[in-house]
């Protein structure tokens, strides 16, 4: 009793303490430094809410909030509606080429969203290649700009957030539950609706939440596609680092509102989950269902169509990278000059990207998985706090966090600016929610009595976590690692503020080339990133598959 903590709470308390320490230092402290401006008057002395009244009183910002929420809700709903059947088909139906689909499904996340948006405009813009081709057939379509286009891009790029955890969850469903339902006279179809879906609901919700928050936070896509529709994250970005008038007070207001929205959504989700605690005792990966030929063909077409559609910007970039660019201008001739231009420069950015992504993925897993375990196992105020804090980074625009980092760690006891570690830490903080949410969704499905059995047999809670829980979570953990790795490799908004000198990663190369007149170099860099990130993804999925085979 030396800690004064009941012995069966020592592990969660220790994890929570370490987690809160990390997040306190690298999330809350920098944010506090950034946001304190929003509640201070112009002299920075007295506490005031005038900045909030001012922002919320302006129709422009109210419109920005309304647009953002509407787009977020629509994109989340559509993404979820597409991804859940997709996940079910991959987990339970005889669809050919599953490994390929899975590997390709994570690919949209490899491409930074500003590059996707660039490709989409080249294809579907007013003078886009596809647009002109369709027009030559007399087929017009509405503008890619505005809410419709933004929702389309979100759907096609963010669906893996729902897909990956939901597949893991479908595979973790205890077949005996379904057997029980069918034994009670339920048809297979009804069983899916009434038994299987409710069981995977926590994972679906966790994924949908990520999508929703990502739509709130993302500015790469609306930056290009919103034209002049005001969008929350874009306005926040401009207020923080607008070229003309950085306005930290107003920017802080938007940042705080963004965070409050996220916290609210999270609490609603947590309430919903706490009312429905499903634990199943997985002892068998559920079998592939036998279905008729037409249904199998339909499921196959469905899965492949989504994957391929989502990869259109992706293919476009690869194709563009082999075309001739004169300055910024595209000419439809084959050329390898872009790659020549790219590799004439240093390979250092590519190495940086790989190293940062790997370190960040490791760091996120080590921090996020234990936190995910604690928040789903330990119902208490501290766990709720930890959950909310650990999901907050998702609501914090990368730019905002990065500015907080610079303000907080450029002097004083902990100096990080100028080196590579600050990037890894910023990535780790930003991506911790991935690991936390995917881990907690899986832990929801692991019967707590397995851990109690292990403890009663003489393993300490920590050994139990490592020997029982982690092996059972492995599929979920690995998909979390893939997500983290891939999204770190494509991160831009924090990187651009924090990188220095030799520590420039690939996204910065792309961004700078695209902003300048080197679109060709940008597409070549994007293609290279695609190829290089594809390899570890494939390797990881092979690993996951082997692991799953060993469970059979």
């Amino acid at each position: 009793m030396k800690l004064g903590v009941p012995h069966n709470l020592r592990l969660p308390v220790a994890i929570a303490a370490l987690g809160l320490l990390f997040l306190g230092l690298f999330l809350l402290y920098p944010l506090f430094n950034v946001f304190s401006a929003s509640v201070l008057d112009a002299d920075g002395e007295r506490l005031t809410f005038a900045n909030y009244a001012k922002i919320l009183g302006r129709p422009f910002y109210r419109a920005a909030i309304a647009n953002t929420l509407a787009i977020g809700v629509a994109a989340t709903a559509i993404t979820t509606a597409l991804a859940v059947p997709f996940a079910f088909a991959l987990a339970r139906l005889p669809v050919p080429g599953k490994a390929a689909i899975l590997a390709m499904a994570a690919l949209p996340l490899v491409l930074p969203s500003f590059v996707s948006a660039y490709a989409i405009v080249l294809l579907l813009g007013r003078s886009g290649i596809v647009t002109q081709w369709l027009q030559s057939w007399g087929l017009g379509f509405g503008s890619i700009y505005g809410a419709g286009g933004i929702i389309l891009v979100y759907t096609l790029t963010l669906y893996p957030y729902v897909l990956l955890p939901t597949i893991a969850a479908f595979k973790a469903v205890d077949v005996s539950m379904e057997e029980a339902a069918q034994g009670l006279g339920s048809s297979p179809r009804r069983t899916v609706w009434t038994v299987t879906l409710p069981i995977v609901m926590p994972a679906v919700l966790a994924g949908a939440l990520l999508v929703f928050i990502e739509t709130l936070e993302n500015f790469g896509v609306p930056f290009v596609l919103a034209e002049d529709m005001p969008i929350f994250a874009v306005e926040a970005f401009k207020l923080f680092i607008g070229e003309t008038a950085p306005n930290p007070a107003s920017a802080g207001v938007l940042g705080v509102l963004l965070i409050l929205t996220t916290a609210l959504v999270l609490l609603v989700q947590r309430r919903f989950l706490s009312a429905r605690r499903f634990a199943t005792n997985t002892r068998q990966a559920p079998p592939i269902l036998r279905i008729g030929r037409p249904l199998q063909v339909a499921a196959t077409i469905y899965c492949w169509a989504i994957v391929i559609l989502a990869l259109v910007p992706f293919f476009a970039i690869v194709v563009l990278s082999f075309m001739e660019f004169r300055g910024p201008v595209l000419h439809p001739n084959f050329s390898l000059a872009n790659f020549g231009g790219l590799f004439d420069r240093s390979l250092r950015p590519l190495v940086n990207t790989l190293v940062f992504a790997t370190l960040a993925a490791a760091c996120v897993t080590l921090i996020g998985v234990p936190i995910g375990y604690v928040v789903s196992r330990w119902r208490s105020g501290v766990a709720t706090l930890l959950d909310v804090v650990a999901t907050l980074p998702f609501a914090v625009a990368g730019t905002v966090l990065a500015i907080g980092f610079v303000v907080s760690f450029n002097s004083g006891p902990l100096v990080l600016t100028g080196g590579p570690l600050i990037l890894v830490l910023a990535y780790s903080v930003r991506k911790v929610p991935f690991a936390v949410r995917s881990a907690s969704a899986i832990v929801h499905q692991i019967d707590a009595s397995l851990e109690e059995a292990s403890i009663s047999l003489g393993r300490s809670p920590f050994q139990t976590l490592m020997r029982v829980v982690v092996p059972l979570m492995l599929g979920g953990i690995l998909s979390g690692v893939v997500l983290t790795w891939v999204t770190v490799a494509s991160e831009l908004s924090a990187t651009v503020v924090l990188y220095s000198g030799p520590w420039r990663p690939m996204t910065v190369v792309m961004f700078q080339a695209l902003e300048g007149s080197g679109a060709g170099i940008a597409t070549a860099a994007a293609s290279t990133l695609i190829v290089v990130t594809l390899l570890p993804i494939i390797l990881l999925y092979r690993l996951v598959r082997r692991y799953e085979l060993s469970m059979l």
Partner: protein
Amino acid sequence: MLRRTFAGALPLAMLGLPARAQAKKVVIYTANDSTLNDLVFAAFKAETGIEVEPVAAGSGVLARRLQAEKGRPLGDIIWGISRSLLQTNKALFEPYASKNIAATPAEYRDPDNLWIGNNLHLLIVLQNTKLLPEAEAPKSWADLLDPKWKGKIAFTDPANSGSAYSTVTMLVDMWGGGDAGWKKVAGLFKNLKVLNRSSLVFQGVGNGEYPLGISLEYAGPMWAKGGAPVKVIYPSDGTFAAMEGVAVIKGGPNTDNAKVFVDYINRKDVREMILKATFRRPTRNDVDLTALPGGMPPLSQVKLVNYDEDGWTEKRTKTLEQIKDVLQDSR
């Protein structure tokens, strides 16, 4: 006790700060695009042996970074930011009298030598000649008020672009100032597509998304050189030449090398090299534009208007709010 040791050890152990003092280098915060950066930094190194470590970002990001690092500057040079950003961040700069002062008109440098102008961006209208035949093109800012251009003119949000801010405020003055000027500007906004970043405007016109775009001069010859159907319209009712410049950051790690760069970047031959590749109009008054590619007219042939840059910079926060309202009302 333990905390002190920990705190002391961290910067050494974790930073990975390049500690090779003997290597000749200079850290340049640049808001210029990568084409210009790559060109200049390679040539600079070839000539001086000084390695450039660039930090490239939008000028807003760079300024924020500069201010955040005030206590311990990590950069030596800030380059490619507007006159008003140079003015507002003066306190962070080290005075240095460049060797090129004589060839640079006084209006393009700081009296205390805290910064010096490198090049001028004329505020112009870009035209895509494939979407819009030359004959039908507007000739002046006033022509842009015609309702037939509704939704056809790309512009950058002045909250994120110094040149866009200058354009709006210049037009307010040109069109009578005060309420009268703002009323006409509000009319112009009805025709504009206000995009988030200036690069979207010239990409948009160059790639054929918009027939017209309010942009900067260099984009026209740059895209035309690449083969895009892009032409620059110099408004007949006059325009403003926005300056970009360079400054040495006070207390940076390689101040001596920084000064070498300031001298280099404004040298006549270097300015000509830059103009040939990226069409930046130099502040130097001794470069003959007619002998160089790009077809850029000498400044004397362009109608310029008086523009109170410092005055509008002072009123910026309030003015930007006003622009937001105009923008919102025009939707």
